[in-house]
């Protein structure tokens, strides 16, 4: 029983954490380059819708994922157009994307599919399948099902943590991205284009958000439902801040949030000694409460990129 519990907890933690990881990495890239990205939520939601709609029409997983990434990148560019090109307020632009997406996806879903905002369920052949279906029998519950029982996107997300880390800390591009988030004047003086670097970061950010949205539809559930992201974009943002804008600690934060979410589901209807049955809402609020407490306790030092949120104005 313990092994089964551990296995399912592990599996569920990874599943819940995957979109968070992808979004948090997207946030790390954008914010390290100096662009606040509150639009993670909206991009993920629109990407989920695109994946569902295109998946339904074409029946192709690949095209669905491509559409998800495409739409998220477009939204990133829109964010960039507003904030990098025209130096608009980054928080306002991000929130605007979220609000527009919230309404627009529902409207489009109703108009195109007439199912009260939902899209038709995707067929098994379109959805993502576990990479190693037989792993559970061979390796047991914990390793086989908990670790090896997932689809490719879960492992991709985990691998991307390493990729983003390597990109940021071991490559020339990463050095430039980190620098442009700290001191864009210097990057400009060094003869590099601040604008190009920030757009580049936003493009990569879009791809990652697209994958996160696609995962929601292609792996977690089979269809799009209005507001199906349900605040995951903000959770990812919190994980990124909690991880101090670094990929590996952000991964840890995402896993923690995933684990808390899993526990919350497990604890539904369970009677605790002395307390009795804990209301589901209270448990579901746990990750958020945790976030607030952790942020308040650990973010005393100034670790955010210095130029975060400040549009770059070329003059002095």
């Amino acid at each position, binding site marked *: 029983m313990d092994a089964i519990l551990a296995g399912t907890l592990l599996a569920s933690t990874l599943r819940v954490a995957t979109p968070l990881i992808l979004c948090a990495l997207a946030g790390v890239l954008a914010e390290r380059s100096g662009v606040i990205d509150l639009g993670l939520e909206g991009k993920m939601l629109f990407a989920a819708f695109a994946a569902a709609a295109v998946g339904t029409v074409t029946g192709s997983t690949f095209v669905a994922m491509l559409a998800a990434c495409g739409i998220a990148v477009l939204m990133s560019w829109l964010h960039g157009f507003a904030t990098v090109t025209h130096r608009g307020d980054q928080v306002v632009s991000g929130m605007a994307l979220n609000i527009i997406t919230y309404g627009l996806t529902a409207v489009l879903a109703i108009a195109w599919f007439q199912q009260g905002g939902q899209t038709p369920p995707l067929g098994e052949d379109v959805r993502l399948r576990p990479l190693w279906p037989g792993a559970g029998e061979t390796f047991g519950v914990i390793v086989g099902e908990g670790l090896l029982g997932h689809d490719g996107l879960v492992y991709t997300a985990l691998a991307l943590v390493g990729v983003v880390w390597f990109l940021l*800390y*071991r490559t*020339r591009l990463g050095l430039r991205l980190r620098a442009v988030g*700290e001191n864009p004047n*210097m990057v400009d*003086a060094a003869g590099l284009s601040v604008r190009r670097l920030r757009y580049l970061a936003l493009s990569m950010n879009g791809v990652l958000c697209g994958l996160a949205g696609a995962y929601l539809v292609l792996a977690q559930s089979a269809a799009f439902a209005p507001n199906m992201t349900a605040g995951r974009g903000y959770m990812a943002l919190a994980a990124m801040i909690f991880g101090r804008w670094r990929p590996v600690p952000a991964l840890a934060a995402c896993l923690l949030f995933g684990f808390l979410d899993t526990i919350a589901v497990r604890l539904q209807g369970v009677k605790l000694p002395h307390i009795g049955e804990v209301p589901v809402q209270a448990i579901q609020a746990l990750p958020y409460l945790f976030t607030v407490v952790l942020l308040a306790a650990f973010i005393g030092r100034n670790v955010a990129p210095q130029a975060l949120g400040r549009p770059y104005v070329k003059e002095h």
Partner: protein
Amino acid sequence: MNDHTPIPATSREPGPPLAVRMAGIRKTFGPVRANDDVTLDVASGTVHALVGENGAGKSTLMSQLYGLYVPDAGTIEVFGKPAHLRSTHDAIAMGLGMVHQHFMLVDTLTALENVMLGAEPHALLLRAERMVRPRLQSLMESTGLRVDLDARVGDLPVGDRQRLEILKVLFRGAKVLILDEPTAVLTPQETQHLFGVLATLRSQGTTVILITHKLDEVMRLADRVTVMRAGRIVHECGVKDTSPAQLAEAMVGRKVNIGRPATTGVAPGEVVLDAKGLQVVDAMGVTRLHGIDLALRAGQIVGVAGVSGNGQSELLEVLSGLRTPRAGTLRLAGETFAPTRWLTPRTARRLRLAHVPEDRHARAMVMDFAAWESGILGYEGLLVYSGGGFLRRRRMREDTRDMMERFDVRPRQPELASGRFSGGNQQKLVLARELGQAPHVLVVGQPTRGVDIGAIEFIHGQLRKLREAGCAILLVSSELDEILALSDRVLVMNAGRITGERPVEACTEAELGLLMAHTEVHPEKAEAPA
């Protein structure tokens, strides 16, 4: 006070090779003519000083040379080749390099990473570093610019950061080095070292363009000097053929006198402010002031010299009531204050202590407010300004206009936003406001930071006048010249301690420099500078 050992320029034949030629440069920003038909020739292998007051157009001119602005008219040639500089990238490619006044460094990166940025020879950082490191090391050997390449820039002292900036520029192959006010943040010793390096670079064939307003530096280092005023070139000559007085006159357009005037003859009066054992610990638990004792007498200016960040700011905050110390006492106008009930800015005003903050933008004005609003800020509670809770706007405007008149604030427009005035005029307005209440004690930080020569002269005059009126003044300044020009007594602060105290007659710049910079006086102290 400085050793006149200008290394002779490379012999100037009839047609010396020109490193930079800017001809007929014109640049306007809206109605402002920042550069008006400016022509500048800089001979190769020389140090060419460019001097002028703030807003004279020096920085605009150099920004065009460095590709940050494109001139409206005129041509630029670099080493005889016409240069169309559309971006800093173009400028770097032509062999130009600029060291900005505000360092262009990323604090969270290492020194090495900062140097490489934008010129990384390989896409993988480790490889790139391996290629860059030996080249940098030999560059450090040949120039004397030594920096710990693996230290985080945020941990490096200011002098090191500047050396790093120069290294960065040279690493990119700059043959013309543009330095914007390089000594503003340095101690005299660091300045000495920098000038040694620049002389070495010159002897190796590098051309240096030095933007400055410190005329003694021009005399010490430069071969030629160009003076700008109001967007035009008003004077150009060899350094050997000129004097600081002549240059100052050219800069301002009239005779100026900033040196120390004959002694006032006013005997210092009684002690009006007496602080003992002031100790300040900041939020990070670092002790910023280690038991400072300080007494101010009526009719006396006490100057506090020191490199910024050695506790001067904390001292100002404690004495003006902005910060409560951990320990210590303060006697002011017959009242005694202890950490349990410290002076507040409001009490300070009641006890006739005025404060001119060192950070004008943060503490002295609200830049978006009209001048007449900033002009009474802090005194809006006075009955003449607010009766029954309503602002008496007409009175405020009138008084501001009056202050502008008395302190020569230009333009005389009380409706103009505070931030639209030049630094000097902002400072004059703040000074007018604080001096307007006839204080008995004045605590003033960096009164002439970012202020041009004409305004410096005026502000110094006002401070002297106030002293003659019997006010006790504490002057904190990172400009040694200013301390020496104004003070009766000089204190030197270093790492939160007073490391020396002298009557001004007994001060030499070299000795003060030592007190400011090093552990000469306190060899037992081992902490790192803040």
